[in-house]
């Protein structure tokens, strides 16, 4: 029954690397764009320069540590300067650096040229999700983490794309120059997709530019890379690159969806329909702070269960959900959610966890509230 040692070795290697090959990745991905490949080349060039210099310096040092230890080399030399050598080791590194600066400058100039784009997408960072708006197309949506809380809390096995999966990825066409106009609504975030070598900070009040041109269709994943508060680790970036034809189909679908949503706003809703929809909205937008039980995490995140805010004055309840509460973690959801979803989640909160007010807020109520607010400004 004895097998060749190679069998066990390859079985071992397969178990170690085959199962989760990505888990032992030690290097940057070369990526899927011209820019990402030239960045990768720069990275490897500077890496090898460092390796060579390191090998030389540490080599000399280790040789000296062995050959010049006291037991081998009892009498030390007494030299302590040598102008020629000192000039050489100042000038040579300088020349290497100049050699490195040239390609780096070339790549940087290329990266900074975001003119002549085919598709423009405004990327807005929110605590803790991304919003994508296709400029001139009337299409916009939020991109939320979909990893279930149970996986995060180790109550369910984690999926392959744990923490790197969203409900609606950004969709872009292959071959087109896509320009990102990056900003934020609250704190600073940073939008990063390693395979595209695009990382740019999303800064409230300012718009940063970046761009990409992807040749290969595929799904590319990244994360927010600037600490942005509690759920900084839970706002992934997913970019779905499709052929121009598939992209056109997707864009048409999104436009139809937008039209349907407008219709929903004017529809007659029942309280059951609203609470049902509201529960879904609550799970994506509110649950991280106020918790599924509605008990929150006082004092930072107050309980909604039995709270006066959600059982008394309806106007005040709409106001805090739409406008948030400045100076606290309570975000303004007025622009993040549609009127339908706002109405649904408010209705849900007024009736869930034994709040049972039996009161209903319709999409029209929310619309009226927003319009009244605009009129006063």
């Amino acid at each position: 029954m004895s097998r060749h040692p190679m069998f066990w070795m390859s079985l071992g290697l397969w178990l170690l690397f085959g199962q989760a090959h990505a888990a032992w990745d030690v290097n940057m991905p070369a990526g899927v764009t011209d820019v990402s490949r030239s960045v990768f080349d720069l990275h490897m060039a500077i890496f090898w320069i460092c390796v060579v210099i390191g090998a030389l310096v540490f080599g000399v040092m280790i040789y000296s540590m062995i050959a010049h230890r006291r037991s081998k080399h009892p009498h030390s030399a007494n030299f302590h300067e040598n102008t020629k050598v000192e000039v050489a080791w100042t000038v040579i590194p300088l020349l290497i650096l100049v050699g490195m600066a040239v390609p780096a400058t070339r790549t940087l100039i290329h990266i900074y040229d975001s003119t002549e784009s085919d598709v423009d997408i405004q990327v807005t960072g929110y605590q803790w999700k991304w919003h994508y708006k296709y400029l001139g197309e009337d299409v916009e949506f939020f991109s939320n983490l979909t990893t279930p809380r149970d996986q995060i809390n180790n109550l369910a096995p984690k999926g392959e794309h744990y923490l790197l999966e969203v409900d609606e990825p950004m969709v872009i066409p292959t071959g087109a120059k896509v320009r990102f106009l990056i900003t934020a609504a609250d704190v600073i975030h940073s939008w990063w997709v390693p395979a595209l070598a695009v990382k740019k900070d999303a800064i409230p009040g300012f718009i940063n530019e970046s761009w990409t041109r992807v040749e290969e269709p595929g799904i590319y994943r990244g994360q927010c890379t600037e600490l942005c508060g509690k759920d900084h680790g839970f706002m992934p970036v997913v970019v779905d690159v499709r052929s121009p034809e598939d992209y056109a189909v997707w864009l048409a679908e999104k436009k139809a969806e937008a039209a349907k949503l407008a219709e929903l706003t004017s529809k007659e809703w029942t309280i059951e329909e609203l609470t049902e929809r509201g529960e879904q909205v609550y799970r994506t937008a509110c649950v991280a702070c106020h918790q599924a039980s509605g008990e929150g995490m006082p004092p930072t995140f107050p309980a909604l269960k039995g709270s006066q805010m959600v059982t008394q004055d309806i106007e005040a309840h709409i106001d805090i959900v739409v406008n948030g509460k400045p100076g606290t973690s309570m975000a303004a959801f007025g622009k993040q959610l549609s009127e339908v979803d706002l109405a649904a989640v408010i209705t849900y909160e007024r009736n869930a966890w034994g709040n049972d007010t039996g009161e209903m807020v319709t999409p029209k109520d929310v619309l009226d509230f927003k319009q009244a607010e605009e009129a006063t400004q």
Partner: protein
Amino acid sequence: MSAVIDDHGHAGHDHHHGPAKGLSRWLLTTNHKDIGSMYLWFSFCAFLLGGSMAMVIRAELFQPGLQIVQPEFFNQMTTMHGLIMVFGAVMPAFVGLANWMIPLMIGAPDMALPRMNNFSFWLLPAAFGLLVRTLFMEGGGPNFGWTFYAPLSTTYAPESVTFFIFAIHLMGISSIMGAINVVATVLNLRAPGMTLMKMPLFVWTWLITAFLLIAVMPVLAGVVTMMLMDIHFGTSFFSAAGGGDPVLFQHVFWFFGHPEVYIMILPAFGAVSSIIPAFSRKPLFGYTSMVYATGAIAFLSFIVWAHHMFTVGIPLTGELFFMYATMLIAVPTGVKVFNWVSTMWRGSLTFEAPMLFAVAFVILFSIGGFSGLMLAIAPADFQYHDTYFVVAHFHYVLVPGAIFGIFASAYYWLPKWTGHMYDETLAKLHFWMSFIGMNLAFFPMHFVGLAGMPRRIPDYNMMFANFNMISSVGAFMFGATQLLFLFIVIKCIRGGPAAAAKPWDGAEGLEWSVPSPAPYHTFTTPPDMHTLHEHRTGPKHD
């Protein structure tokens, strides 16, 4: 001054009495050695506290998923770990070494401004009391990273941020006073014949560090004051809604922050420049170029700040300027490394604990320097920025850089401080455990960073799991090992073989001309040129 006059008019100033007894010795002391010891003990306590926070972080990151702490507490841990290590552990340790060693190295009786010295130390417990207390406040402690970027640290900060701001103010005042004291001491109290270019490099690097501190700590005070105004007085320095600019915060912060990282490494450069020659039994190679290289690094540190901000969207020309300036730092830093290696070359080397830490310092700090050079390449930085690659980089320059430099100094001068030799076997064990633990902890961080793991996240995808587990194991090993260091130091204070005035045969410098342990008062009359000369010329072979 004759003893007779002393006895009659200034009994309290008699230079031959010992320290006062009891608590008042420590509260009221103006003795540089007492204050130095207090700084060192304070720093070690902060090191253990900041280290235990690192253990919480590594325990949470041991596996994917949330196990031990929730994200909001995790963020407080990363923030406090950084603040406590930078301002509580590394900086006070160097001030402690400066207090102890600078007067002994330049033949001065004490620091130039002893009362201010006392005050600058006692501000620190107050500052850290304020800071650590925030963890128990409603809404928790600072959770916005040690770099506290606005508006996360202003509009969106927990209430405790005000206490954090005042703690930073106090630490800043303490550092500025400490720095002024070093400058005054070095420029005024050198023994006759101790010209600037004869000073040990530790004194040189500290003099330059002190100027850096005086230049940038007020900038830090300014930036936290602007935060205070934004939070409580309705200004909008950092709020775009009121016409301000969140990026302005980063410019001001890093104008402080980049020199700050050199503040944390230059004194270690100096100490290692004494230790390597001592255990190579050979004079330091390129003393003059070492001094100029330190000056060049200090100058460059003021014009590279925006390399921390390559992704904030600074214009192309700005990006290029900061990239080139940053790459230039590799030149003087390289000169230093080449000089250390040449000092060892054809020496007669032994590897006691100070030398082990010093050699590891040179190799591992260089690795941190290499990753720093990689980070300087702006287009590549777009991939590295704010990932674990950066975490690996700055831990390689701070742990085997600053902290190994401090360990090397501690072992090198412990015999002088305590009058006893430390336990060499245990010290070597401390070195090897620290060396292995720290490499296990921080080397794999390069890999996960390059593979795409952002920093400051409490949870991660499984593709980062293996290396994170290895990192955590290394971190636990490194952390636990530091208790061994505490044991070695206490054992050395309590007893051990008596140390000679000069316990290292290759050591140079005035500090070795006084007995071990160093008497409470030293150099009450300046050492004469002869003594000075004897301790400046080449090593003796005995």
